């Protein structure tokens, strides 16, 4: 029961890695999908480079979102930032009704084409789940624990770093996971604004009516998203074994 999914994940990872390193070996699989002798494997760029660029963009944006979102959530849950709390909650609610594409599309005209608008859009959209989860984590601490921390004479700073943040950690990590997964998808759309990434492969397929390209771009992205999700889940379980969320 427990080893089945693990095996499946291992196979998925193996498949992903071998495909991006040596895509030509898979050419016979994709050949039936092409017409008029079109190339079965994406030939306008190196798949490995594209995959790494995609992953790099996603991770960079997620790192920035995490820093800012956690800092903001800490700020609005301190006494000095209370005034911003109601608004920030509403904003998260409203923000989540913005489609990622809209965020990306609005950024392009402001900063031009390339990596930058994609990074900004991923960063902005990635803020929401992390901020929301951190906020929930910091606000739903068991009162007995925070009172005990105060009772033992912890300073506000000590309380934050040794009690509040560790207890909120499972939720923060979950927020990062959601953010990462959304980013992998949004980054594909980034290719429509000339960001380097796997979207390029799909778009090329769409433009040249080459189903093989679309399929391999889609599969690599999907595998990457699923593996990132599962990987983060494993990290969460390892880091938070001692912290019960309920």
């Amino acid at each position, binding site marked *: 029961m427990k080893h089945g999914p693990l095996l499946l994940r291992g196979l998925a990872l193996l498949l992903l890695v071998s495909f991006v390193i040596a895509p030509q070996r898979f050419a016979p699989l994709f050949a039936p999908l092409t017409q008029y002798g079109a190339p079965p494997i994406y030939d306008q760029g190196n798949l490995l480079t594209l995959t790494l660029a995609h992953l790099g963009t996603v991770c960079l944006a997620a790192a920035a979102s995490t820093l800012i979102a956690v800092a903001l959530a800490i700020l609005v849950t301190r006494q000095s930032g209370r005034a911003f709390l109601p608004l920030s909650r509403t904003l998260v609610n409203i923000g989540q009704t913005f489609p990622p594409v809209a965020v990306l599309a609005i950024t392009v005209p402001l900063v031009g*084409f390339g990596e930058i608008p994609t990074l900004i859009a991923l960063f902005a959209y990635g803020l929401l789940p992390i901020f929301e989860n951190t906020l929930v984590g910091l606000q739903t601490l068991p009162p007995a624990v925070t009172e005990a921390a105060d009772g033992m004479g912890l300073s506000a700073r000590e309380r934050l770093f040794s009690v509040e943040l560790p207890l909120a950690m499972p939720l923060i990590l979950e927020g990062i996971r959601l953010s990462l997964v959304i980013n992998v998808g949004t980054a594909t759309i980034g290719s429509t604004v000339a960001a380097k990434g796997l979207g390029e492969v799909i778009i090329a397929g769409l433009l040249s009516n080459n189903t093989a390209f679309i399929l391999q771009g889609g599969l690599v992205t999907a595998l990457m998203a699923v593996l990132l999700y599962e990987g983060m889940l494993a990290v969460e379980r390892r880091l938070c074994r001692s912290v019960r969320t309920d």
Partner: protein
Amino acid sequence: MSALAAPLTAAPRRIEPLGALLTLAGALALTWLPFVLVKANRIVPGTPLGVGAALPPAVAGGLIVLLVGAAAVGLCVGAPRVRLLAALTALAGLALAVGLAGSLLTPGGNRVVRVAPGGAFWVVLVCLGLLATDALTRLRPRPLVRVLALGLLLGIVVAALASGWFDHLSILREYAVNAARFAQELRRHVLLAFGSLLAAALVGLPLGILCHRVPRLRPGVLGTLNVIQTIPAIALFGILMAPLGALAGGFPALQRLGVSGIGAAPAVVALFLYSLLPIVANTASGLARVSRAAVDAARGMGMTHWQVLRGIELRLALPVIITGVRVVLVQNIGMVTVAALIGGGGLGTFVFQGIGQTAIDLVLLGAIPTVALAFSSAVLLDALAETLERR
């Protein structure tokens, strides 16, 4: 007046932190960013104009007074009603001013020159919007009030756009050019989003009930749906194109029904698959939170299985199920945008065309209605869930 004066005298030194932040941002934007951009055509970068240059002195002065007033209220008055009123008044003034600038700066009869709202307009708009949102949040309006307020807001916006006052602004110019297509793509957008939701509800509800009744199925079903959710939209569209194309090629009857590798079919199937998880998961967890005692009592008093399911279990799970529907609808409205990439149509068509032509107005013509649609759905369904929860 007394409402205004009381907090001023009671706590003269207390400055609202949010008001301070918004005032600072608004002031910086008005100083450094253009109020409008005048472009010779829709693509070239425009000439930036500040408030003073874009508007007649009297109007510019009036606008500044209105904004300073709103800033003063934002800085010093704590009462949410007053803050809301000040923000809304200033918003109306700001909108009227930008519309007027559009008319004044467009040479008569010229259809090529575009007047676009500039950075200062957008920043001040957002600042005032935040001030209003914050006040509204603090007022904690009841669900019905929220829905009425949304209706009123949409009514005012539509009436204002129809009045012609804003016709010379670039986005509306873009709309005028694409009016017929806009209506068509909007309809298609709504149809795709709601259609896939409906299909997902028809399948997801029974599946959720099944997961609740047969707990063994739950991890498998939810796990699978979770993996599907992780797959990026564009990737799933792409993956589905191949089999659907093959299906259509193999069965001409399906093709006549509109199934093909390109277009709406892969989009609907993908959206349907994405929609399943929130509906199934929320149905199952909504049913799980129904009091066992209530269900036991209902059965013990002689309700049939169907009566218990419909009258007690589903009714009590409904707020949670509606929350799932809200998630799906908001998610679908956003993802339909991406469907434009594979020829699925919808408002995303304008977004991607706009990106292609670097025409921000066209992007906004697609993006703003999408956001409005998603936002309105969220407000409506949240209100519905809250009302049901209260009863």
